[in-house]
């Protein structure tokens, strides 16, 4: 295994271009597991730990710009994140244990694209944009376009995640983050839900954003349910109908950790109780 340690972002971008197929290393919390299992033999690793500018969380106009190397610990203890993006702060506080939280990074979490990534539903409901950089260009991508499969992203070769932009929003009438992992710590989610709801003064739904993770290969927003509910009053009958639409947006799986049936039922319950 070859390890290179760029000192600046420019150097990192150059090295990423030069070593085709190299693995960018952020917190390493997942990479070390595969390395230990001998799955990283022969790879080139680009250790990003010296890029301190990518660790910063700062305001940039109407967004909060979170450096890709910001750790889960940084995020959950950051004042603005806690106030304006509490679901993300809560998600970060449920990832692994304290050791993982202080090593693991938001950018690494996204690039790793685990189906069970706990930050993804909050990022999805906050309409986060991922800023990507390569030797050729810099571009932004909506978080919902990033995940394309199990541990697969839409990032192109040579692209690194520089930061994540979180647009500020009007404070919602209701917000929900719920991780269902059965164990109380160091659990991998069976289902993870994030929701934001804005109600109009007449009690009708102005906007609902609801996302589910750990259900299938990628985390998803419930687009059908969201548009169905727009402008409606969340009565029991309407909510029941919305809940019955949930299956159009997610296709849960059976795996080692849980069953499709359980995931679906729990997601329905979480959605129903959030709306009623």
């Amino acid at each position: 295994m070859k390890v290179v340690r760029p000192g600046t972002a420019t150097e990192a971008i150059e090295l990423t271009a030069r070593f085709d197929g190299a693995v960018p290393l952020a917190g390493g919390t997942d990479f070390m597991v595969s390395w230990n299992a001998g799955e990283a033999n022969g790879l080139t690793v680009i250790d990003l730990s010296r890029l301190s500018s990518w660790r910063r969380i700062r305001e940039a106009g109407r967004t909060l710009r979170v450096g890709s190397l910001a750790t889960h610990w940084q995020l959950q203890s950051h004042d603005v994140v806690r106030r304006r993006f509490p679901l993300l702060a809560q998600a970060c506080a449920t990832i692994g244990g304290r050791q993982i939280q202080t090593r693991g990074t938001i950018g690494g979490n996204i690039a790793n694209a685990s189906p069970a990534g706990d930050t993804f539903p909050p990022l999805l409901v906050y309409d986060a944009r991922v800023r990507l950089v390569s030797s050729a260009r810099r571009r932004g991508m909506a978080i919902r376009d990033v995940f394309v499969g199990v541990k697969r992203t839409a990032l192109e070769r040579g692209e690194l995640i520089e930061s994540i932009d979180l647009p500020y929003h009007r404070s919602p009438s209701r917000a929900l983050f719920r991780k269902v992992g059965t164990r109380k710590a160091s659990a991998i989610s069976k289902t993870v839900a994030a929701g934001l709801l804005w109600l109009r003064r007449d009690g009708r739904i102005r906007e609902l954003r609801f996302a589910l993770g750990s259900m299938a290969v990628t985390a998803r927003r419930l687009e059908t349910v969201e548009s169905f509910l727009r402008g409606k009053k969340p009565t029991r009958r309407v909510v029941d109908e919305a809940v019955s639409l949930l299956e159009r947006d997610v296709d849960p799986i059976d795996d080692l950790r849980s069953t499709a049936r359980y995931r679906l039922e729990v997601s329905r319950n979480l959605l129903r109780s959030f709306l009623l």
Partner: protein
Amino acid sequence: MRSRRKEGPEKLTGVAKYIDDFRFQDVLHAVTVRATVPRGRIKQIHFDPSFDWTGVVVATADDIPGENTVLLIERDQPVLARDEVRHVEEPLLVLGHPDRAMAYDASKHVRIDYDPLEPVLDPERSSTVFKSFEIQKGDLEAGFAEADAIVEEEYRVPHQEQAYIETNGIAAWEESDGTLVVLGSMQCPYYVHKALLPIFPRDPGKIRVIQAATGGGFGGKEEYPNIIAAHAALLALKAKRPVKLVYDRHEDMRATTKRHPARIRHRTGVRRDGTLVAQDIDVLMDGGAYITLSPVVLSRGILHASGPYECPNVRIRGRVVATNTPPNGAFRGFGAPQTLFAAELHMEKIAKTLGIDSVALRRKNLFRLGSTTATGQVLRESVGARQTLDRALEKSQYSRRKKAAARWNRVRKNPTWRGVGLATVFHGAGFTGSGEIFLKSRAGVRLTPAGDIVVDAASTEIGQGTTSILAQIVAEALDVPYEWIRVETPDTNQVPNSGPTVASRTCMIVGGLLERSADKIKERLAADGVRWPLTRAALRGKNLSITEEFEKPGEIEWDEETYRGDAYGAYGYATLVAEVEVDKLTYEVTIRDVVTAQDVGRAINPLLVEGQILGGTVQGIGYALLENVVFENGAMANAQFTNYVIPTTLDTPPIRVEIVEEPYSRGPFGAKGVGELPMDVPAPAIVAAIHDATGLFLTALPALPEQIEEAFHDRAPRQR
């Protein structure tokens, strides 16, 4: 006395050496190559010609100088499979390389071709019965004829992984005088010694087995080290170099023994007032591919299958069968947690059927002094069953709590259902029946010329406090400070065979031998004119050594053929009250509170007893709610701690421990065993509490949220 752990400071400061901490010159790191099919005939072993095999040493069944067998109860399990494999992960060869990563790499370049055979994975379909037993008491049919109601149910319990903090590991080498030395993580050095002898025939004195600091066992290091020691020794002899064989977690979880899964059927005749009149119990256990300790696990299982209740007419039948899965083996409780789960939950079912309170039902039938067990054993002393029940009810404020839960459940907007459940169990301390008589355990106390007091026993410290408790017993008997006592390292060249460190026997049996040894030393010193309080100076130059051997207690009678008589010298008793909360949205269960009262005869060190009870309770919570071995193709598919979920500190509820002391005349200072008892009681209490909370009667473990959700929808939907 709440004295501190003898070995505690060394472990805390990192001075204690576990097997992977030892450095050896010219050592080879070994890796085991294992079967990938559940059943098949081995056609050929290929070594990839494109791989550089320089420096790799390979040992196969052909290198075994003696018998290719892992000696335990039977000789059915090979050290290395030669012609046929019977389970996934069965060892086929061991290879070593000076570089550990290279050894792993090499193991990936070995390919084995099989003629696959149809595996048996379902114990219900197995035609190979390793062992069966039947216990009979009274007249079963007459009992059922007297019954006002007959209550039937079937219960299932799963595999469970021991999850010790340190994985299995052994080092082996041959000394220049031809002594084969084995050092490692283990519970029973003399088991390893006995197993190695037929594989490597030589003078018994030329095999030396030493225990390294051991990071937990829970039974998982009772018999398995026999295999890993044989592998390490075989490669060491072939390579003529020291060999270190340490499993990683994934291999340890997939390949080594687990708790036997079981299916238990109860058919019980009961009078309207709750009096038991007939118990018909059928137990089926899955032994896995080889016999290992299965007959003994089954034996303990059926001996506890009736629960701690007196019933005049009983039949208990049990069998353990073969499947093409990795062999199951010893695990804390050793068959009893399986059958007691069924027995205790069945009491809830009976109470529900009769419409009476399950506490009243238990109280009516619970063992008391003079009760006769299913094997016809009359309980003559040390029966604390009722005391544990009363104490747990009182300390938990059971009735008040149960009413509060019912009130909470009436409020529809509350996010959870709450419920309170309880269970009462017993656990035979020490080996079953004549086991201790066959063992003829020996342990002793020695005064060195320098005036040191040394305990000689092969009983191992595996985190449970052996070293401290044995030292404490000797200190108390000799009336000297605890700090004066040194406990010898379990090393077959140094210490007598005090028997295996299993079956909650160390304190009661080995402690008893040491108390007697110490008493004799005291007499001899007194006869020499030594006076108390003792001084170190008075001990100098005494050079005394006393070793005691286990003697059959006169009143104990056991018939191995008919399974009649005194199954155990004494039993421990425990009651546990659990309050749970079930989430209405996710069906996840949180334990709000646990109160447990346990009768241990006498708590020689209350701190250690409490430690055993707390640890056992948490392990029992894992068994009840979380731990789920997922099998695919006959082996564990979720062999990592990320997917095999054991409780963390945050999953641990407040646990209040009440120690009940009903002394046993033959235990040291009245002590009975405590190691396993705490493991038996949480699961049935927790599942009873889920029943109280939700009205769902779950009959299988673990009670995962997935199962609770399914149970909800299998019956008429309940309002939430």
